């Protein structure tokens, strides 16, 4: 995304010490970095970030500076390495926090306390600190120490149960879903707390449980149980309130989706397929009765789609105002004219990975625009600059820490 140098950035002047790792925490901090905060991602080669060891790697060559998985979550950040297991490393981190406004972390609960770096300790060096902890299940409770990734948290938080066909297994979303859901929940609280601090000068601590955030994305499922005593179930591509509603395979093997909630959309759909006789049957004329005929409707659409490419089917629907689309592959997403127009995939030059694409926020701010401004940092790329520049460390002390392994 093009950034306009004359426009202010929302978080200009805000400094963040980002101790988080893997998916959720770094994505929360990415929001701040992409909108102008100076985010210092603290890592250590002695406890290598999981995603630096996970592909895709450029040239398919595994190396901790070549991971696209890591890079995407860490745009616009600086990279510093500190070994927090050393006494001097802990002191150094406190010096960094003393000049930071925000600390983000996603370790297993208790890890930072063991290091003497929990909120109670850190607020002593920075009383107005805003700190967010964001492990899977929160700081307390019998599951507080449970391990896992987004791919299994989606199971605990209901997404598997609600994804798949009624007669099939709870397949889940195909991605580590909550890793791409709960960062937005976490960022909402963090930025709200920062806005409160902007107006009152008061910092605070946020105990964020990914699990508890994810439950808010289950639509009406919780109330269906607590108020109606009925369990929401996975319905394949059906929707209880639309007919037709589904994904249909076309001649070229690609799929179109079609959704008709209103009579107007149904009329558009009829026009799109040439108003065949079956659409005029009595039982097809009203939505409430169409809802009982979904099997038959789907069979007709399957036949219709089989004779057309996805592009042809989609065009017919689109031209008649039917909510519809193509199930886009990653390749098609990169070529999508709408996303291109929006500049969704920012291209940034990385020292070892070259020009690579990064996800942008789903929103554009008209007056204080954000977006990825710099490729992800190499491991420890900015250690010297931050320690000497931001902390004013002398050459001698820096060399001493380096030699002692504090900066590994």
């Amino acid at each position, binding site marked *: 995304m093009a950034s306009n140098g004359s426009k202010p950035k929302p978080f200009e002047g805000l400094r963040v010490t980002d101790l988080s790792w893997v998916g959720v925490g770094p994505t929360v901090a990415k929001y701040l970095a992409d909108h102008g905060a100076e985010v210092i991602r603290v890592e250590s080669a002695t406890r290598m970030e999981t995603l630096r060891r996970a592909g895709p790697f450029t040239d398919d060559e595994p190396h901790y500076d070549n991971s696209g998985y890591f890079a995407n979550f860490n745009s616009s950040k600086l990279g510093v390495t500190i070994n927090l297991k050393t006494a001097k490393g802990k002191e150094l981190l406190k010096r960094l926090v003393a000049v930071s406004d925000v600390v983000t972390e996603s370790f297993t609960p208790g890890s930072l306390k063991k290091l003497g770096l929990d909120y109670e300790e850190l607020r002593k060096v920075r009383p107005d600190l805003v700190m967010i902890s964001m492990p899977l299940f929160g700081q307390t409770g019998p599951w507080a120490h449970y*391990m896992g990734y987004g791919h299994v948290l989606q199971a605990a938080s209901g997404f598997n149960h609600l994804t798949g066909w009624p007669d099939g297994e709870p397949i889940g979303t195909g991605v580590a879903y909550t890793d791409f859901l709960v960062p937005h929940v976490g960022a909402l609280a963090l930025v709200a707390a920062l806005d409160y601090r902007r107006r009152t000068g008061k910092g605070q601590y946020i105990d964020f449980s990914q699990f508890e955030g994810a439950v808010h994305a289950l639509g009406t499922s919780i109330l269906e149980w607590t108020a109606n005593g009925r369990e929401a179930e996975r319905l394949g591509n059906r929707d209880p309130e639309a007919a037709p509603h589904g994904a249909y395979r076309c001649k070229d093997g690609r799929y179109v989706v079609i959704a008709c909630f209103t009579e107007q959309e149904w009329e558009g759909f009829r026009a799109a397929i040439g108003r065949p006789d079956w659409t005029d049957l009595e039982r097809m004329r009203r939505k409430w009765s169409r809802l009982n005929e979904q099997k038959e409707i789907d069979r007709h659409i399957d036949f219709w789609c089989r004779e057309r490419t996805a592009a042809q089917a989609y065009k017919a629907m689109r031209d008649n105002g039917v909510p519809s689309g193509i199930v886009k592959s*990653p390749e098609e997403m990169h070529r999508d004219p709408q996303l291109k127009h929006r500049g969704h995939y920012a291209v940034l030059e990385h020292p070892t990975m070259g020009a690579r694409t990064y996800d942008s926020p789903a929103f554009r701010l008209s007056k204080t625009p954000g977006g990825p401004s710099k490729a992800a940092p190499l491991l420890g790329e900015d250690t010297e600059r931050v320690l000497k520049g931001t902390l004013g460390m002398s050459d001698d002390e820096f060399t001493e820490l380096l030699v002692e392994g504090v900066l590994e």
Partner: protein
Amino acid sequence: MTDRPDGVPLPHPDGPLSGYRVVDIADEKGQLCARLLAELGADVIKVEPRAGDRTRANGPFFRDEEGRESSLYWWAMNAGKRSVTCEMRLEAGRDLFHRLVAGADAVIETSAPGAAKDIGADPRALVKVNPEAVVVSITNFGQTGPARNLPATDIVGSAMGGHMYLNGSDERGPVRTTAPQAYAQVNLQAAVGAVIALYARGANGGLGQHVDVSMQESMANAMDNAQQTWDILQINNRGPGSGRMVSGREGPRYIYEAADGWVAALGLGGLVGPTSGAMIDWLDQTGEAGPLTAPHWRERLEVVQPLEEDEQELLVGIMEQFCRTRRKDDLVHEAQARGVGWAPVYSPREIVESDQLAARDYWVQVRHEDIGETFVYPGAPWKLSGTPWKQRGRAPHVGEHNAEVYGHTLGLDADEIAKLRRSMVI
């Protein structure tokens, strides 16, 4: 707000956004966003036509009885807001709406680009009505670009946002999550955009701005690493959802059937990688490790590396056998005790009955005094030490707060309000 006999919404003076006012004219793409702002302290005013908001007709309904006050969708997405009616197609209604906007810190709207001009709610017009307000526009594809005016619903967002491609099954094709996720995603990401723009008023001389949010882009951000995998390796990650294809490599299945449901156990349940020793020991203790106790298996599995197809089949078979005879909570508890990150596949009921959420005092009892019942709602997504989250009570009835909003908040006198009623504006 002391003249509210039923106390709905509950006051929330201690939230991080307390003192802000938000005007909500959003549909499915923005109502959850506005609700979360209310739970963070904002006074959220839902503006509806006199007949009630269209989404009040969204099911399911309480006890399956359709009605404009019984939609569980409405309850879930609009809890804790105030409701006023305002007929924006009338000129007097537009004037009234603009008075609400003039006193707002944020407006959440979801009209198609250009479509709200005739009701006076075009985002550009609203920015002029109140330059200090943040105007959040949530649309299918964004305000600009060739697709900006195309119709879409949740499944279209999932398809055109690249998410559905990564899911489904080889035989039956792609599948969406039945609880609408394109809607959930765009609501949550819009909420982040809203608070960033509120924060930016500090850097921008107190001025608000337009926040242009795209549902397609919100789903594109949920593609795991498929975006980068295409960019770097020119490989399309894809389904099936029961496996895990990531970084261009197909993984083995990660869900296994237990005696009473399913468990999620990534990476062959930890049989491959640093936890493989612990897993083999566990299987060995119950006599179900098969050949895996042999030193060459222990060595082979300790390092994450591609497995031959027959090796994978053997391991999946062992896992399937092992899980099938045990309860899912027992499996997960024991796996976690051994340092392996499994989780149970929970249904909504099991989530409500979860020990973890009970121990965290998660659930909230929400009183519906109008029907004499109390229901359990999801609780705090975060525990903020200084400015707590708060559930603000049930969703409002149509126009429930007309008198207090138009009278107290806007300061109209009784005659003016009576006139608005007579002319069918409210």
